[in-house]
């Protein structure tokens, strides 16, 4: 139930209604139906929806050192172009465990060109035999 209310709130805000007005309207509806107790749960579901949306739209390029970022962006260019992602939307993070190379996470898409991945692949192939 709380998920459905949170989703409805999300949709009316996305539809153009001011957030404050939307919440006021929601409180009125809940009050009329005697369901004001659901508000904390709705708030939690709304924050899950919000973080889901954020992660769906976020584009993160992970590199082992900040100095690798420029080269990594150049290498990931084709992928970004194919996925319709603008360079300006890409956030760069440093993750030392990658050892080298880069890893791009864009919503549900992943392109892992890190050295760690390559070494793990080789390790798995050797240990499987």
């Amino acid at each position, binding site marked *: 139930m709380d998920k459905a209310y949170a989703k409805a709130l999300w949709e009316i805000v996305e539809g153009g209604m001011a957030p404050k007005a939307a919440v006021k309207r929601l409180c009125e509806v809940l009050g009329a139906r005697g369901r004001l107790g659901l508000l904390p749960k709705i708030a939690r579901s709304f924050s899950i929806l919000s973080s889901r949306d954020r992660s769906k739209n976020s584009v993160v390029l992970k590199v082992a050192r900040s100095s690798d970022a420029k080269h990594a962006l150049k290498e990931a260019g084709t992928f970004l172009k194919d996925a319709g992602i603008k360079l300006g939307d890409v956030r760069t993070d440093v993750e030392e465990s990658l050892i080298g190379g880069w890893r791009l996470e864009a919503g549900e898409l992943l*392109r892992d060109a890190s050295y760690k991945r390559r070494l*793990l692949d*080789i390790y*798995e192939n050797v240990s499987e035999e």
Partner: protein
Amino acid sequence: MEQSIVQKIVNEIEKYAPNADVEHVGRVTSVGDGVVSIDGLSRAVMGEIIQFEETAGRSLAKGMQSSGALYGLVLNLEEDGVRATILGDSARVSEGMTIKSTGRILSVPSGDELLGRVVSALGEPLDGKGQFSKTTMMPVERDSYGVIDRKSVSVPLQTGIKAIDAMIPIGRGQRELIIGDRSTGKTTIAIDTIINQKYEPAEKRPICIYVAIGQKESKTARIVAQLAEAGALPYTIIVDAPASAPAALQFLAPYAGVAMGEYFMDKGRDVLVIYDDLSKQATAYRQLSLLLRRPPGREAYPGDIFYLHSRLLERAARLSENKGGGSITALPIIETQDGDVAAYIPTNVISITDGQIFLDSSLFNKGNRPAIDVGISVSRVGSSAQTKAMKSVAGTLRLGLAQFRELEAFMQFAQDLDKTTADRIETGRRMVEVMKQKNGAPIPVEKQVVVLYATDKKFFADVAIARVSEVESLLLEFVDGQYSKELAEIKKTGVISDELKTKLDRALEEFRLAHRELFAKS
């Protein structure tokens, strides 16, 4: 480091080509009781294998330490994500973990290499005899063969159990349910059937697959030892999903077993698959479905509980010659509570199968073993697979036993009985004795024919009831030694000709003369 290992690593590095493909991923939002909720994976398909990425955010050394890849199976497709079950240790999964789509449907290895081995529901070896090298992957979920590809059941599958082969015959490609309360000998019948296959010529011998679902590991270990001791292990595969295994593996085990069997069936071989037992699989599936938040129905089972068993048992078939002529015979086992065959899961499986062998706990407690209640046991298609020899000697057996059961009840309050009734009761008692059989001692079909022929000729009429089984085994020894040619003929032709009948009559008479002391009723 050994030079060969160094060379292996060098070779691996030289041939390594980095994967340039874009992967589809999702993220774990919650995990509990072996089930994960995942955000993303919008392209996932039902039954797809997904891989948990345990190495993300960890150092290379820690990534190398994780014990093998961890997989999951997609079971629910939802509006904003998927729900999947973890095929392994759920303690390795954490919130926020990345999950990759593999695009693969769950498959298990199959092939000759699996014979004599004990494997998990995922086809991984559990017996410590090493990994498999040459296997073929078979999909766990697959459509069953259609009517055009099938042929009716006509070849018998000998169980080696007199009561079954005579009165409830099973054919290759049939689905015969074994049903009864706990500790009534259900597994014993299944194991004896596997052991009896050793009497079949190697080229016609069915490959046997025993699927243990939710069983104690000690019981499975005992079965493996029993099969090994009887020489039945070389043609048997044991799929083990013990009670301690996750519900997902207990639910998958029967499908894995039949998938392994399909490999052999597609090659034209006969296969016997035993599911021990489907009640526990249904319970595991109920647990999984409730955790997946599927709406519960009767007895909290999900709505598709019938389909769970029907799609499994429909994969048992006898294929036409165009398809190689192979077959899968299924012997599912169902455990009832207090003999209630009208419960939900038993009635479902009874309606799917081609007959049932009902084991009665009161018969078991009386010492009638196997404790088969012939009154409500039936084989709907097996009679067409019975040999003529067996048909000719077992024709009146069922009726005789049924009449005896009725008279037995009547006898309890009747004072005087007329001679015909008393004779019928005496004959019935001996029939019951003849039908008794020790576990782990299946009897080849030609010997069964001889015993039943003797019963039909009232050979045991003058034998004291307590000595019937002794006389039976002595008779079989005698026939085996003196009339082995005749036994071989019955086995080969499957018919008792008039000439053979005369020889059998002579054999019975010779035995009677040689053992006069056994034929003095007292």
